[in-house]
């Protein structure tokens, strides 16, 4: 326990020190984590040592969580739209890189089996580094971001057949049965399905995927609804974690990639009302585990080996980056990407990935590759990963500013805005009236509501409503607050509404807030905290009721309507004036009395003159006086 706490302290301290410094110098968090890993690793301070590999295995779960979150952000329709890039670009990338790297390995004098194994392993890129960096820099929505994502997704799929093929490439055929056993053991110990005959395995695999989709569609939202009703935040977080880990275990049982399984789970839940809440609950775990993973990569770089064979390792790193970037660049030209985006795509995916470590040790255990080769390759892959943030920094600072976009070159809109410009918080009677008006006028909204029964009801009516607490900054963020224009606060609880307005003004100052105010005091407080668009919920209906009362008393419709219109405008002006003094009880009382008297006097004066309003519109009295004699 003590040693666990101690190493936790070392890892966390390294992250806390290194990441802000790296960010400060514009290097991005990934590079910060990697540097932290190098510093605490055996080569520099030696705080952590042999357990680095274990930590890395544990931290790989961060990748699994990341794919879950990515799945949540991807709706099935969007995934379908990406299918061309996924299969075309992804497939060609894996094929092209395998052949090119394999050819290079052949040139080094390795037998073809080893060359092919190396080619297959090095074709993979680092989902963790690429997506983390791209999200941080806001490049996910760019052409290169979308295409990189598609390729990475395909690579995750490709891991499964690569795992199956690698043992067949073993050089010593007499150990084949041992190898097969080892494959079953080492790919993942829990995978009982691997011992089944082929057709049963296929059935089990299909069954697991069907189970995942079916349960994800129906059972999971029902369970979350029950938990949400209990309003226990940590239970919800626990359930979210349980979901992700459960999917990962299920996938391991049937021998599928956990990352792929959680991704699928995420996609299935992307259309559910818990999308934003799940995303913000998993996000911190994902971030921490990924950070841990990067630290472990940094710590596992074998500097003595690199020192001993410096030119060879340097050549391997440069060769790996160059070959992969070249293949990607050719593909980018083929896919008609603009030159700056194509270059970003090529540089981003040029490194080896975290799966390379897994596959290299797997290949070693299966006697496919000798230890000497895998040791060198692990070092080369780790260094290529460490180089990626630098390459992307180079792109950002040097290439992007020089990119000249020709007018006709703007890319077609293949990715619709998933996030909407308007977020509505609170979807009771008030909020849903506002939301339906906006929807009916062709404005899409993202709606957050905390009452899970109501969410379910509204969803059944066909409205797109999400379960989520708008007061949580992370939930607002995943609901798209950073890209939205307006946020409409319709909570019935005045205090909650005010707190929400203040939090939004702090975290998302670019958002224009339109707030419902329960009454006069609530309106004052909202105005005081800087909200300009404040709507007292009772005013408009009270004015309409008042106007109808005037009509029933015999006033003409137009006169009654204008009286109400006029009263509302004056009253609103008064309220804004009173909002400046409402904390001062005496000043407020006297000003309020004055304002009420003013308003009534002006209205009464018109009552005397026979018109219902105090403007002299359509009023012939003065004309009669002047010309009528």
């Amino acid at each position, binding site marked *: 326990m003590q040693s666990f706490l101690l190493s936790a302290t070392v890892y966390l301290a390294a992250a806390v020190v290194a990441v802000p410094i790296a960010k400060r110098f514009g290097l991005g968090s990934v590079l910060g984590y990697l540097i932290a890993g190098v510093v605490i690793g055996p080569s520099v301070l030696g705080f952590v040592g042999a357990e680095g590999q274990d930590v890395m295995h544990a931290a790989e779960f961060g990748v699994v969580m990341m794919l879950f979150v990515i799945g949540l952000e991807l709706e099935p329709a969007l995934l379908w739209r990406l299918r061309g890039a996924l299969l075309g670009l992804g497939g060609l990338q894996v094929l092209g890189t395998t052949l090119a790297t394999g050819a290079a390995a052949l040139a080094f004098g390795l037998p073809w089996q080893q060359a092919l194994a190396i080619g297959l392993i090095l074709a993979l890129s680092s989902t963790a580094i690429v997506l983390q960096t791209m999200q941080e820099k806001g490049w996910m929505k760019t052409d290169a971001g979308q295409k990189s994502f598609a390729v990475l997704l395909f690579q995750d799929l490709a891991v499964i057949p690569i795992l199956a093929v690698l043992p067949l490439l073993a050089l010593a055929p007499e150990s084949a049965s041992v190898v097969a056993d080892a494959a079953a053991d080492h790919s993942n110990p829990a995978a009982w399905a691997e011992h089944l005959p082929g057709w049963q395995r296929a059935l089990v695999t299909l069954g697991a995927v069907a189970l995942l989709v079916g349960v994800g569609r129906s059972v999971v939202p029902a369970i979350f609804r029950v938990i949400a009703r209990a309003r226990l935040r940590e239970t919800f977080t626990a359930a979210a974690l349980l979901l992700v880990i459960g999917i990962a275990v299920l996938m391991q049982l049937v021998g599928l990639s956990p990352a792929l399984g959680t991704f699928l789970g995420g996609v299935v839940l992307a259309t559910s009302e818990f999308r934003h809440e799940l995303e913000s609950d998993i996000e911190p775990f994902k971030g921490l585990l990924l950070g841990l993973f990067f630290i472990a990569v940094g710590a596992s770089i074998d500097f003595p080996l690199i020192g001993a064979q410096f030119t060879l390792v340097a050549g391997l790193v440069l060769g790996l980056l160059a070959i992969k970037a070249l293949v990607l660049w050719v593909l980018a030209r083929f896919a008609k990407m603009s030159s700056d985006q194509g270059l970003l795509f090529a540089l981003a995916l040029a490194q080896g990935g975290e799966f390379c470590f897994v596959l290299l040790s797997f290949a070693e255990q299966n006697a496919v590759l000798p230890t000497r080769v895998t040791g060198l390759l692990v070092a080369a892959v780790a260094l290529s990963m460490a180089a990626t943030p630098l390459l992307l920094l180079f792109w950002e600072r040097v290439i992007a500013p020089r990119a000249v976009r020709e007018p006709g070159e703007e890319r077609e809109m293949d990715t619709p805005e998933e996030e909407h410009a308007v977020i509505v918080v609170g979807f009771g009677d008030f909020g849903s009236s506002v939301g339906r008006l906006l929807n009916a006028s062709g404005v899409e909204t993202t709606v957050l509501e905390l009452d899970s029964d109501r969410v379910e009801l509204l969803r059944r009516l066909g409205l797109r409503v999400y379960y989520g607490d708008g007061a949580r900054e992370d939930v607002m963020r995943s609901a798209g607050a950073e890209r939205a224009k307006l946020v409409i606060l319709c909570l019935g609880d005045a205090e909650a509404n005010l707190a929400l307005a203040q939090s939004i003004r702090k975290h998302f100052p670019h958002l224009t807030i339109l707030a419902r105010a329960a009454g006069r005091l609530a309106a004052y407080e909202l105005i005081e905290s800087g909200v300009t668009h404040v709507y007292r919920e009772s005013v408009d209906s009270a004015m309409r009721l008042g106007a109808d009362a005037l009509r029933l008393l015999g006033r003409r419709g137009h006169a009654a309507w204008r009286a109400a*219109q*006029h009263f509302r*405008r004056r009253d609103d002006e008064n309220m804004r004036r009173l909002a400046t003094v409402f904390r001062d009880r005496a000043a407020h009382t006297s000003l309020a009395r004055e304002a009420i008297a003013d308003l009534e006097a002006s209205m009464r004066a018109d009552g005397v003159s026979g018109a219902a309003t105090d*403007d*002299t*519109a*359509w009023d012939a009295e*003065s*004309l009669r006086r*002047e010309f009528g004699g």
Partner: protein
Amino acid sequence: MPRPVLILFAHPSFEKSRVHRQLTRAVRELPDVTLHDLYEAYPDHDIDVKREQTLLVAHEVVVFQHPFYWYSVPPLLKQWMDLVLEHGWAYGSQGDALRGKTRQVAMTAGGREMAYGPDGFNRLTFREFLAPVEATARLCGMTFNEPWVVAGTHAMTPAAITQAADGYAALIRRLGAP
């Protein structure tokens, strides 16, 4: 001293107008010009009379920019005249707030120029149709200029619209010249 120009722009479906989009763009940034979009300011037709009168006092030239609807102005502009031009302020023995200022109509019409005239389909000229506006201006002691009209907008090419916009900017600049 340039003469400040107030453009009272009235168009209930501005979003759909090709010509007025270009016209407003041509004059929006001109110095000493205030473009006042009435349908944007008063969606509920509840005109703030005091604010409008203050604006009028601050300008020397008042332009009505609008489409020609049923041979007349759009309803909000008529409402504006009804409410803002108060007796005792704009006219009458005490009303001299607008005396000496200039009134200019700048409007668009779907029909062609030749349809407006004694021999045309509509029998009357644009100026004759605008008699109420002219009389209102005269009662307030304002100079009423010959209306500036972009006719035949139903069949206008983009190039012709651009040309009309340039002409409008020139007109506004001329009106604002010292």
